[in-house]
């Protein structure tokens, strides 16, 4: 643990370099993950629909996403004439940044090299992921497009509503482990009674996974970009690399949310025989697969049903779960 001492020391040139290097490596890593998450999504959904998915670019279509991203990057950067130009330009960046920043607290493996073992990891994640909403609403507003506006408004309502049950279901885990530090939460799952929190917190996990799907704007909660209603929702007017930013943010969140679920409920890097990072990768992939699987199956829920489901069902249940956990933890 010698090399993490810079976390606690005052800032110096060397620690800054370390941090910058770490951030760049994580960024490179996450870009690779997103590239192949998209590839994986297209393949999995393709297989589920009797298709073969991308198979043209490179062997087995492995370079398909890279080609797509390159195409997006060299496209003309179109800004609609009636758009609020400054807002329109910065909105995708605002949406993307928090998605990347939340990765700072995700413990990828036991020797979490570039992970800040922050004492408020859970709060940090929730707080930052909420920032993305601003980027989305801003993008919808600045486009000066009715579809985009409705998409942006929908996503604001949706993300705010689902942030609450998401946070409350996570708090139950925090209660159990007695820490907000994601690393300590993983380590707490090693202690007695040697079970991942999915077992005692199964109820909370269901709430978490529903809210997480909604938070990620994925089917069946993909209303903000509901294609059949709103064309493309808040990014209707976006193209080129700004569009890529939104997509990137979306898929980074898929990864981040899967990583969070793994950490909170499935013991993070814990697991027998295999190295920690591999366990982590397997668990995260399983979550990502689950999101894609749901996407291939479910129709889309309706806006009003979505909101009333959150406020009338999920939040009371999450509260109940939280109180029950607290009571049990006090008694035991």
């Amino acid at each position, binding site marked *: 643990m010698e090399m993490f001492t810079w976390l606690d020391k005052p800032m110096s040139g060397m620690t800054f370099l370390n941090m910058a290097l770490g951030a760049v490596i994580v960024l490179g890593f996450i870009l690779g993950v997103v590239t192949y998450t998209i590839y994986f999504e297209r393949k*999995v959904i393709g*297989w*589920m629909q*009797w*298709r*073969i998915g991308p198979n043209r670019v490179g062997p087995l279509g492995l370079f398909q996403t890279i080609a797509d991203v390159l195409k997006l990057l060299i496209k003309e950067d179109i800004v609609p004439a009636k758009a609020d130009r400054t807002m329109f330009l910065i909105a995708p960046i605002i949406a993307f940044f928090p998605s990347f920043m939340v990765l700072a607290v995700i413990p990828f493996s036991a020797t979490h090299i570039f992970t800040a073992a922050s004492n408020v990891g859970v709060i940090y994640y929730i707080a930052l992921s909420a920032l993305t909403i601003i980027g989305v609403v801003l993008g919808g507003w600045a486009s000066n497009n009715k579809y985009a506006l409705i998409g942006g408004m929908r996503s604001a309502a949706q993300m705010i509503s689902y942030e609450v049950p998401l946070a409350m279901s996570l708090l139950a885990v925090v209660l159990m482990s007695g820490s907000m530090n994601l690393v300590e939460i993983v380590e707490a799952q090693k202690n007695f009674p040697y079970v991942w929190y999915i077992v005692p917190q199964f109820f909370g996990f269901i709430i978490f996974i529903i809210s997480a799907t909604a938070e990620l704007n994925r089917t069946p909660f993909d209303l903000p970009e509901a294609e059949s209603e709103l064309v493309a929702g808040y990014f209707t007017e976006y193209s080129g690399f700004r569009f890529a930013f939104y997509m990137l943010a979306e898929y980074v969140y898929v990864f981040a949310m899967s990583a969070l679920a793994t950490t909170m409920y499935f013991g993070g890097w814990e697991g027998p025989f295999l190295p920690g990072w591999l366990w982590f990768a397997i668990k995260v992939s399983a979550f990502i697969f689950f999101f894609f*699987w*749901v996407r291939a*199956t479910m129709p889309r829920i309706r806006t009003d049903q979505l909101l009333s489901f959150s406020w009338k069902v999920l939040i009371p249940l999450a509260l109940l779960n939280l109180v029950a956990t607290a009571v049990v933890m006090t008694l035991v």
Partner: protein
Amino acid sequence: MFGFLKGLKVTFKQLAHKKITLQYPDVMPDFGERFRGVHKFYPEKCIVCNQCARVCPTSCISLSGSKREDKKLHIDTYDINFEICILCDLCTEVCPTEAIQMSDKFELATYNRVDLYKNIYWLDENARVSDGLLKKGETEEQSGGVK
């Protein structure tokens, strides 16, 4: 209550289903003998009865013929405008000598609309290509001349 779980089961099962994607254009699909693609034309069979031009719902066929030494009508020009042809098959239905038929060629996309006016030579060549007498893109001379 948990009907959606059944749905998840269904989609999961489909992972192992046979993939049905067609590998067009690497593998050309087999459309069968009745397929109505672009016309092929056999000038030697044509008796210039003009029935095809009359029955055509979009009037996309225009033809002309003349009397030759044997006192019979022979076809001179035969043009089909594939901009408006709807490949309805009525012309081949009325043709008494089966001079106009449908081939299994169907890819008509071009960069220029003028290319969609097909004349007697093109249709004749299409007939020989589709009957296997001539390879695609090959000219009369290269194949040794059929006529």
